[in-house]
């Protein structure tokens, strides 16, 4: 069964450092997403991406965040200058069409120290 692959599974970074989380969506999917889950809290939507541009983003997705699909297979989330409160599990997802048939990756646990 096709999978969404996320790397690394766990990343520790120092506050203020830049971090890039990587995702390989399912190959025939057209919509890509990032969600995050702070420990003990709800899973929250960050951003959706379609046709090489952001289609929607939440209030969480401020100027410190950016997304890119650099080579037609990877989908990345960059946090420019990490804060302690960015510590969370970050999930990548992809779908064939908007909000239909989502497949989530297994997540990257980001720990900012």
């Amino acid at each position, binding site marked *: 069964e096709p999978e969404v692959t996320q790397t690394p599974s766990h990343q520790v970074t120092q506050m203020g450092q830049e971090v890039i989380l990587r995702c390989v969506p399912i190959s025939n999917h057209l919509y890509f997403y990032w969600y995050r889950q702070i420990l003990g809290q709800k899973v929250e*939507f960050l951003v959706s991406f379609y046709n090489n541009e952001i289609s929607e983003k939440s209030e969480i997705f401020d100027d410190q965040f950016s997304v890119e699909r650099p080579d037609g297979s990877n989908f990345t989330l960059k946090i420019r200058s990490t804060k302690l409160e960015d510590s969370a599990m970050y*999930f990548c997802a992809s779908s064939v069409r*908007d909000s239909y048939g*989502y497949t989530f990756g297994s997540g990257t646990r980001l720990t900012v120290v």
Partner: protein
Amino acid sequence: AQSVTQLDSHVSVSEGTPVLLRCNYSSSYSPSLFWYVQHPNKGLQLLLKYTSAATLVKGINGFEAEFKKSETSFHLTKPSAHMSDAAEYFCVVPYGGSQGNLIFGKGTKLSVKP
């Protein structure tokens, strides 16, 4: 705006007994609804989805859910719990009801005792 409320943060059952995880939704029209499961250190896996075709929806691993418009509920059930069902379960609705980004409930942690 769409929203979901999971009524229990933690449910504990004995192996072999029924499971009931409760979810109520708020919507101005009939939404699509999903249940996702997250096993420890794993990703989010789709258990089942309701898209107005049938009110009783069967999912993977013996789970099912019934959409009840009169009660605005979409409770998840399983007749007989298995140890491997221990996980966190999320009731989810798309932001726009049938499209848009996903809104997650707070989750219900299911524990299964031997």
